[in-house]
């Protein structure tokens, strides 16, 4: 769809950014119309990594389709799996035991931390500071090691099943998580020293890419993108699921709506995740980690929708079932797709260097957008 941008002046340059580009976080093709150095229009072309996941899920059973969502937003793989498992449980009307619920929330928050760490490293690298990337990965390795011990995999962990989790946590899990919390609390202050307070960084981020609250709502942005503009949209607070209703944490909001505000929102979210993990790690209830379900799951005829808060925003799973062993249709509401639609509005009038900063704060993961 090509819209008119008013009059195309003589001397407007149309250039391509991507699909292969060091700063587009995946295969994203942007067609930019430039006037000198100022951007007049940004048009994303998607579909380079479309793998027909939703169609594939129509031929997989309800236990089998969960692993595929790990490969969509691979940085929040536990949270995606969690959403799918919750939707199937809604259809089966199965109750997850308390131990299973607490383990799921712990894994979710660790995944959110890992995703924000990678976001921080990649964002700093896009703006030009090449060192924080390695520091961020060092901390991420600690989380990956914890996951490897309990779930067996480091990136695409297929650990959530309808009814609970696949296996009990490793005996060393609590000890390692406590060590990690202590280790990370010192490091997050280092992050602030190295990048957040830096005058060069602030100059690149303040006043760039402003998104007002009304625009955020009308584009459908969720997650830190919308919370940076003051819109209250944290699914964990507004529609609490699992044990989030009993936990004490804050929804982090900033009102400025520019890149720096979104950056601060994510840094604060990391701290909130740490405090959630601290509240839960000593109070894991005893009992079953998985509810008893049949070997072959069959959902009755109907439609169900669940939503969770991933690191990028609201992720939704919508299942339509005709009563068989495989679903009739599954639809995933991906947060990146709506966040990306605000890019054009935010980038107009800025320079090319600012485009990179704006994409960094939107935290796009392209396989999530293309599915």
């Amino acid at each position, binding site marked *: 769809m090509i819209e008119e941008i008013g009059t195309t002046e003589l001397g407007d340059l149309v250039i391509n*950014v991507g699909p292969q580009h060091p700063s587009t976080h995946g295969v994203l093709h942007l067609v930019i119309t430039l006037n000198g150095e100022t951007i007049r229009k940004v048009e994303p072309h998607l579909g380079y990594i479309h793998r027909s996941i939703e169609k594939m899920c129509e031929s997989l059973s309800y236990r089998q389709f969960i692993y595929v969502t790990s490969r969509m937003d691979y940085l929040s793989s536990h949270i995606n799996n969690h959403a799918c498992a919750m939707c199937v449980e809604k259809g089966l009307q199965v109750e997850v035991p308390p131990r299973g619920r607490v383990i799921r929330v712990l894994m979710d928050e660790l995944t959110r931390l890992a995703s924000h760490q990678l976001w921080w490293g990649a964002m700093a690298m896009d703006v030009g*500071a090449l*060192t924080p990337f390695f520091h961020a990965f060092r901390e991420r390795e600690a989380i990956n090691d914890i996951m490897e011990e309990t779930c067996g995999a480091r990136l695409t962990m297929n650990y959530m099943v309808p009814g609970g989790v696949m296996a009990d946590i490793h005996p060393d899990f609590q000890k390692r998580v406590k060590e990690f919390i202590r280790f990370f609390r010192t490091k997050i202050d280092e992050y602030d020293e190295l990048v957040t307070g*830096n005058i*060069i960084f602030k100059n690149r981020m303040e006043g760039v890419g402003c998104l007002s609250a009304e625009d955020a709502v009308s584009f459908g942005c969720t997650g830190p993108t919308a919370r940076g503009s003051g819109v209250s949209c944290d699914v964990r607070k507004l529609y609490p699921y699992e044990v989030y209703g009993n936990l004490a944490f804050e929804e982090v909001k900033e009102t400025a709506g520019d890149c720096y505000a979104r950056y601060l929102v994510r840094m604060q979210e990391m701290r909130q995740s740490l405090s959630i993990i601290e509240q839960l790690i000593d109070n894991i209830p005893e009992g079953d980690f998985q509810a008893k379900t049949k070997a072959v799951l069959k959902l009755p005829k109907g439609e169900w929708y669940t939503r969770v808060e991933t690191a990028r925003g609201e992720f939704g799973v919508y299942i339509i079932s005709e009563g068989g062993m495989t679903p009739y249709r599954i639809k995933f509401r991906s947060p990146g797709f709506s966040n990306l639609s605000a890019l054009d509005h935010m980038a107009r009038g800025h*320079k090319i260097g*600012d485009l990179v900063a704006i994409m960094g704060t939107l935290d796009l993961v392209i396989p999530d957008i293309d599915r």
Partner: protein
Amino acid sequence: MLSFEHITQSIDAWLNGEFSPAVAVSLEGVIVGLCAIGLFAILGLVLVLMERKVSARMQVRLGPNRVGPGGSLQTVADTLKLAMKEGLTPSGADKFLFNLAPYVVIAVAMLILAPMAFARGTQIWDLNIGVLYISAISSLSVIGILMAGWASNNKYSLLGAMRSGAQIVSYELSAGISVISVVVLTGSLRISDIIASQQDGWWLFKGHIPAIVSFVIFIIAVTAETNRAPFDLAEAESELTAGFHTEYSGMKFALFFLAEYVNIFIVCGIAATLYLGGWMPLHIGHWEVFNRVMDYIPSSLWFMGKTFFLIFVIMWFRWTFPRLRIDQLLNLEWKYLLPISLLNLMLMTLVAIEGWYF
């Protein structure tokens, strides 16, 4: 003792004894030229490896450590790789200028070597306007960059070259004013006079506040002049245009790459000469014993030590700070660095006239 002074003087005496003066001078010219090329080669080797190792240590990882003991032959491997690559000339490019540009940049780097003093008595040409000569010749490097950008027949290269040119020309002002501040203290433009005047202490310490301000401004200005981060917008990988050397490959690219590192060495050498005493050991006023102990360390070691320390500081900047946008870069120069350096120059003149320095 085996000092450079002895070697140069003995070679000079032998040549003048064997041949007529004209032939002796031209033979000396040839020897000096070969030494300069050799110095460039060694510097390229050492500095590229140093950059990679320093960056690795700051990023909690090991640098190259497989090729040669501790990775020391890594640059040799890289040079062989670059030499074997195909040197492509884009169609429609201005062939003469395209091929000439790398050589212009290297030639400028070599010319600046002339008045620099590497050790006691080791100076190729001690002319009476040494500092002015250095400032003037360093301005010529812009020509090479603009040539490369224009001759590539690529609008992105041209954009990058123009940005780079604007950046270099602006920051030369602040660098030049900082240099003048030291000349005001010394009273002479000759390099050997400047070094000799630091006999009883380096200007950084003797000239207290104005000298420190001037030193900081000089270091920032030369980081911008050599297109190093955080001012490396012209060659940033994650921005759109890859700069004026996009279309170069193979040995010509290697020459640009080498010229960048040699430029860093040269400007750090100038900073060391002006503010840190060049080859002069650290003397404190009239503390005889301390001064005599310091004199035991050979002067070439002093010079190299100071220069490499400043090179390390510039590398430290690169791996810590994000990049500035082009308008923020020029903003910094014209609104902050230039007014401050002008005020500093006035202050320094006042200090020099009244004699308020050590």
